[in-house]
């Protein structure tokens, strides 16, 4: 599959340069070329929101830098955790004296690098607390939730954490809200065509024509099963069959739904799936309070969708309702 790049080993660097150029109203570079921040960060009296992760997931992670969202983001190579140094630098950039909430996804590399970054930040007197997103139901049984990957649910975690911090909450309250957001969130992905890491130059896994991979990870990690390609309606059903019993979501719940394409999925197909998702939720007595449909968390040029559902309470609703301004999520 043709890719539009320069040196495949420097796609991240090239992308960052373009991203900074195009979004000067929102995004500022920092002295670490792998750390970007919101132009107004650090924001007085506000808990800093930091995240970071491997690249290839646009708009994640840098697309969620902005007003009432993330303050600073550490950027890794394609599908590879940022360095401890960059996580540390992001924490320093985001800190305004009230501490930093580092909200990231559950991947071995990120866990290690964040841990090392926190050690350094604490030596500087910066308090950092973490929430580790693990919303991907398909990545481990419910009994081993601590092993589950973080996927598109991270967007809702940032939205909630970012809003809570913007309301003036202290670090513990921000962490508690973001943790509640992710605890109330479940996701699953379905892949119908693989992705290609530019420097590798060919897909490292296959999804045969006419088949789909249920539970696929955001880096192409194999899912729980390979099946015959189903219709959009059936895929909606299959994803909800995994998600709904896991929390569980029950009649009377109000939820946010985030349906994301994986990079090469036309938005038309995403809406076709969403149509049935909302119908099924309704049939189960579950009310969609707000829906996000689009490319919110991708995997290079993978084709497929992830479905994320978050159960709301009053606090989460307030956070979801808060306006936000970032390249990936704008809301009034």
């Amino acid at each position: 599959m043709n890719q539009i790049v320069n040196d495949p080993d420097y796609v991240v660097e090239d992308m960052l340069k373009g991203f900074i150029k195009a979004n000067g109203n929102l995004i500022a570079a920092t002295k670490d070329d792998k750390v970007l921040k919101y132009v107004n960060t650090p924001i007085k009296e506000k808990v800093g929101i930091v995240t970071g992760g491997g690249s290839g997931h646009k708009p994640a992670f840098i697309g969620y830098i902005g007003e009432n969202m993330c303050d600073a983001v550490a950027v890794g190579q394609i599908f590879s955790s940022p360095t401890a140094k960059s996580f540390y630098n992001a924490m320093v950039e985001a800190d305004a004296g009230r501490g930093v909430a580092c909200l990231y996804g559950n991947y071995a590399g990120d866990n290690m690098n964040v841990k090392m970054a926190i050690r350094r930040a604490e030596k500087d007197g910066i308090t950092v607390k973490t929430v580790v997103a693990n919303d991907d139901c398909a990545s481990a049984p419910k009994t081993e939730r601590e092993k589950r990957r973080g996927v598109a649910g991270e967007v809702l975690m940032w939205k909630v954490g970012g809003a809570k911090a913007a309301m003036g909450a202290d670090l513990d309250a921000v962490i508690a809200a973001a943790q509640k957001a992710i605890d109330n969130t479940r996701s699953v992905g379905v892949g119908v065509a693989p992705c290609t890491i530019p420097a590798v130059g060919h897909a490292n896994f296959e999804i045969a024509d006419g088949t789909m991979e249920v539970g696929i990870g955001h880096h192409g990690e194999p899912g729980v099963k390979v099946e015959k390609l189903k219709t959009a309606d059936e895929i909606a059903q299959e994803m909800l069959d995994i998600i709904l019993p896991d929390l569980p979501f029950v009649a009377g719940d109000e939820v946010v739904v985030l349906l994301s394409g994986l990079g090469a999925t036309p938005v038309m197909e995403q809406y076709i799936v969403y149509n049935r998702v909302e119908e099924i939720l309704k049939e189960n007595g579950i009310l969609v309070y707000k829906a996000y449909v689009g490319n919110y968390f991708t995997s290079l040029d993978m084709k497929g969708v992830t479905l994320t559902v978050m159960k709301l309470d009053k606090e989460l609703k307030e956070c979801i309702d808060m306006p936000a301004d970032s390249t990936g999520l704008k809301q009034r």
Partner: protein
Amino acid sequence: MIKDKEAGFVVIDLVKVIRDNKDFLSEIDGKIGDGDHGINMNKGFTLCEEKLKGKEFGLSEGLSALSETLQEDIGGSMGPLYGAFFGEMAFAAKEVISPEVFGEMLGNGIAAIEDIGSAKRGDKTLLDTLLPAKEAYHAALEAGKDFAEALEALKKAALDGWKSTENMIARIGRASRLGERSKGVLDAGATSCYLLLTSMAQSFQRLL
């Protein structure tokens, strides 16, 4: 006798073995991981080589540079893990690398990996190459073998340890979510680690 300041080339040999096996490492990682292990490693090791270019450096300086590059520029899992490994090895090096000094370098490096990654033997990681290699090395020395022979024992054990990952179920890292499906393929980290240990042992043997 191996002098630290004459053994800088050992690090350059490490860079070479990673570069030569870049695609192979990614291919293995692609089977149960995300297929980038060779890229990540090659990027870090090549960057280190560039930093060292034109400089005079000994073994410990070379390993330090490698450690720093991996930690500061690479990230991923390998940045912290190999970063700490080579960092501790550099720190434990002495002017003369005796068999005992090398044993300590290896031990401290491995301890750092265990500390940061909290993986255990049998989890299908690079530790499954490292731990048996270290044990065989020490056992050989204790059995009265010389440095070169002990390194030979290390190489053999590293090979066996690497191969043993094929039948393991991954219990940590990206592949751990696969359960039974992670069986039947080699671990990427164990593979690069086998290549690195073997290269290092061979380079040392040339000095003995």
